[in-house]
């Protein structure tokens, strides 16, 4: 049961969070089709640190990026996204 440290609420159980996408899959609405396809469908899928976009949906509902190690589940570098702190 992983623990993620929300920048506002502190360490909370995984139950409260929703994984949205890898950061590399954030696309702009006005991107061209080729760029969009590359961002949406090409994944590095590394065994190791993965930069991801998460939302604390069942807590303070804020968005954050973090680095999760896909092998060890270590979580670090949690950064808030959007909105002044």
């Amino acid at each position, binding site marked *: 049961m992983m623990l993620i440290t929300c920048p506002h*609420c502190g360490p909370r159980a995984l*139950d*409260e969070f929703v994984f949205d996408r890898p950061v590399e899959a954030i696309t702009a609405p006005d991107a061209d089709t080729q760029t969009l396809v590359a961002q949406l469908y090409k994944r590095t899928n590394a065994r190791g640190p993965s930069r991801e976009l998460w939302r604390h949906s*069942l*807590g*303070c509902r804020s968005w954050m990026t973090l680095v999760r190690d896909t092998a060890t589940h270590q979580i670090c570098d949690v950064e808030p996204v959007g909105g002044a*702190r």
Partner: protein
Amino acid sequence: MTEPLTISQPSATRWVRCEAFTDDEAFRKAFEAAVGIAPPKPLTWAVAKDGRVLWAEVKAWLVEADAEPLAERLQDVAAISDVSHAWRAIDVKGSNWRELLAHETTLDAYSPTLAPGAVVAGLWSHVPVMVLVRSETEITLYGPPSLAHYLSEALHHLAGWV
């Protein structure tokens, strides 16, 4: 054992949602002028002239007030929406509320920071709730109206076991 907990019936709130376009000086000044107090810091709540004000999300606060007058005063700096019936409130009174909360929750019910003046959001018995601590023996739980019946039943059921 300590005296039993009292649990109120779910009731609607008087909340208005105030989401700042940008959390800057202009917004804060306008907010304080309209509401009477500065926007509370994250995970805290306070009492203003019309009622409670609490930090709900990044750049968003819930204010007990009438929506239209507040909208008129703040519409240049914030989005104001009546959300009074988007939540139901349940008051829990008794010295043992932390034990009831610790039944199955993601929250640290015995945390020293969960004290009067604090408001936290998390899961209690599968329901997304906000817990507002009013005093050492009083809290208010806010949950979605669709789960108010479920929440109330679960609270009553488990209050018998703490």
